[in-house]
């Protein structure tokens, strides 16, 4: 089947056509709809789509705005007024967002059209999108494999040319890891860089919203539109907003990149390792200097993450009590029966597991031993990065130790699934920014499976990791490869 021309474009190229009036926003939307109807029955990236509302917006949008006329897919954890917001959970199955999240309001102001909601692990808890209560999403490169998660629907939609770009959320790697496994670009902004008002909370000291795109430039364009102070989110930083496209195209001479020795762990796939080694040589050939750094507390990241993230989740998910919105159990005997059954019926297994773990680590007698100790080790992890960034401009690593795994391969053992985030979650714990971009392929079972390169930058230093990522991307062809769908 020949690839439809318009949906294959990246955002920057699509905008050139729109601004030259060679295509209309309505043409773009129609072509995208045809592509989605063609490929999404197999991939399952979308949970809901409102083409009718999108078409109305397309009629009146100003194409000269920064994202004028560009349809953007939205992870189903972000409120878009009038559209469902289910978090892929049964407990929010019938929930319709009564207002726009701040990021959606900002994207609309920049002319973007949020037209559909993408699949995810329930409440963003997972690394494979298999924890969706609706259905798993499949990897466009090999539909027997997962797209990563939790923003797996957003990643698969972009990889399949069924979205020009998408928003996701990243609490422990949930943008970067699916971007890596699906062969696209994904950005976790600095903690506090993007407003979370209107984004359903999972772990409030870790969550950030970010873009998933086909190119680094596209990610910078979406970031330009979505960042900035928001009085409705007290954690949202009141810092100047740079133009993230300004540094694209500068070379890497004098750039110092740190290579943490702790990241070369056992269990890293040999094909991933050789792709990362080659990427490092490529970065050197572009003028970057590679410096050995040490992040000695890396090995504790997963343990710290799962205590803190589940503790915060157990508190955040207490709001799902069947009173003001969401599912409510039928004919409760009393209030305890109302709560207990509402939550039993509404939540899936992984969410229940994490509520139990989080409640336990916060419970009387265990708080100091688990939660408080984890917070202290978190501080040591933060200091590791602060020391490394005294010597280097950014840190280089694999995004995921393995390429996409098979559906069902890791679901029986939660700990194995948690280890999928081993290279990403310390970035959330330290509050810094990170990007994943394509850097090669692993050949497994006759299929090509994408490999992701991660760059971690200092807090608020997104412009620099965009510059490095763009230089690498433009000197390779990895981002041009597309799955045969």
């Amino acid at each position, binding site marked *: 089947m020949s690839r439809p021309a318009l949906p294959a474009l990246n955002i920057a190229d699509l905008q050139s056509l729109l601004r030259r009036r060679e295509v209309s926003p309505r043409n773009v939307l129609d072509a995208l709809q045809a592509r989605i109807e063609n490929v999404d029955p197999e991939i399952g990236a979308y949970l809901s789509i409102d083409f009718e509302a999108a078409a109305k917006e397309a009629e009146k949008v100003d194409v000269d705005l920064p994202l004028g006329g560009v349809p953007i897919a939205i992870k189903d954890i972000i409120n878009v007024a009038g559209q469902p917001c289910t978090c892929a959970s049964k407990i929010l199955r*019938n*929930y319709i967002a*009564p*207002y726009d999240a701040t990021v959606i309001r900002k994207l609309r102001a920049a002319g973007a059209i949020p037209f559909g909601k993408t699949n995810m692990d329930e409440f963003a808890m997972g690394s494979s999108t298999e924890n969706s209560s609706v259905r798993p999403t499949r990897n466009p490169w090999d539909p027997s494999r997962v797209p990563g998660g939790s923003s797996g629907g957003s990643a698969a939609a972009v990889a399949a040319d069924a979205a020009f770009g998408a928003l996701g959320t990243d609490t422990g790697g949930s943008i970067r890891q699916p971007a890596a496994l699906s062969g696209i670009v994904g950005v976790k902004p600095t*903690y*506090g860089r993007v407003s979370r008002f209107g984004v359903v909370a999972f772990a409030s000291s870790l969550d950030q919203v970010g873009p998933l795109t086909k190119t680094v430039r596209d990610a910078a364009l979406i970031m330009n539109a979505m960042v900035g102070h928001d*009085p409705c989110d*007290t*954690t949202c*930083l009141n810092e100047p907003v740079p133009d993230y496209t300004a540094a694209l195209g500068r070379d890497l001479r004098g750039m110092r990149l740190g290579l943490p020795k702790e990241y070369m762990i056992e269990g890293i796939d040999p094909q991933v390792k050789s792709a990362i080694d080659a990427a490092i040589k490529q970065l050197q050939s572009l003028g970057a200097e590679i410096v050995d750094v040490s992040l000695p507390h890396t090995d*504790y990241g*997963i*343990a*710290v993450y*799962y*205590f803190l993230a589940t503790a915060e989740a*157990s508190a955040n998910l*207490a709001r799902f009590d069947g*009173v*003001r*919105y*969401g*599912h*409510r159990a039928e004919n*409760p005997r009393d*209030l305890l029966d*109302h*709560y*207990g059954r509402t*939550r*039993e019926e509404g939540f899936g*297994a992984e969410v*229940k*597991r994490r*509520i*139990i*773990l989080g*409640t*336990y680590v916060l*419970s009387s007698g*265990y708080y100091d*031993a*688990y939660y408080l*100790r*984890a*917070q*202290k*080790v*978190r*501080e*040591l992890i933060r200091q590791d990065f602060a020391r490394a960034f005294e010597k280097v401009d950014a840190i280089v690593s694999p995004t995921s130790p393995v390429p996409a795994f098979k559906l069902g391969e890791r679901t029986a*053992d*939660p*700990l194995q699934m*948690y280890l999928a985030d081993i290279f990403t979650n310390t970035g959330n*714990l*330290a*509050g*810094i920014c990170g990007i994943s971009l394509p850097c090669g392929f692993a050949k497994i079972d006759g299929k090509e499976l994408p490999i992701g390169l991660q760059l971690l930058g200092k*807090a608020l230093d997104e412009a620099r990791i965009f510059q490095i990522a763009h230089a690498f991307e433009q000197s390779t062809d990895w981002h041009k490869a597309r799955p045969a769908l």
Partner: protein
Amino acid sequence: MADTSDLDVAYVAKLARLNLTGEETRLFQKQLSDVLKYAAKLREVDVSHVEAAAHAIPVFNVFREDDPRDWLTAEQALSNAPHQANNLFIVTKVVE
């Protein structure tokens, strides 16, 4: 750090207002005990001189004037209510 065998899933589920089936309780007991065994490595770290980090960046209280502004109408706020009447949420009986 407490012994991993201290985890009593059935008791914690009550604290969390979350009913579990017997099968879920047994499965989570096993799986979460494995997670706690893995996480026991945190005991190796000397944290005696470390301040706990609740956030990675400094987070402060943010105050604003208590000025009224337009927000959701009662109708919008009730639009997702599982049970409502007379512009009010209907809740399960709390007092006898």
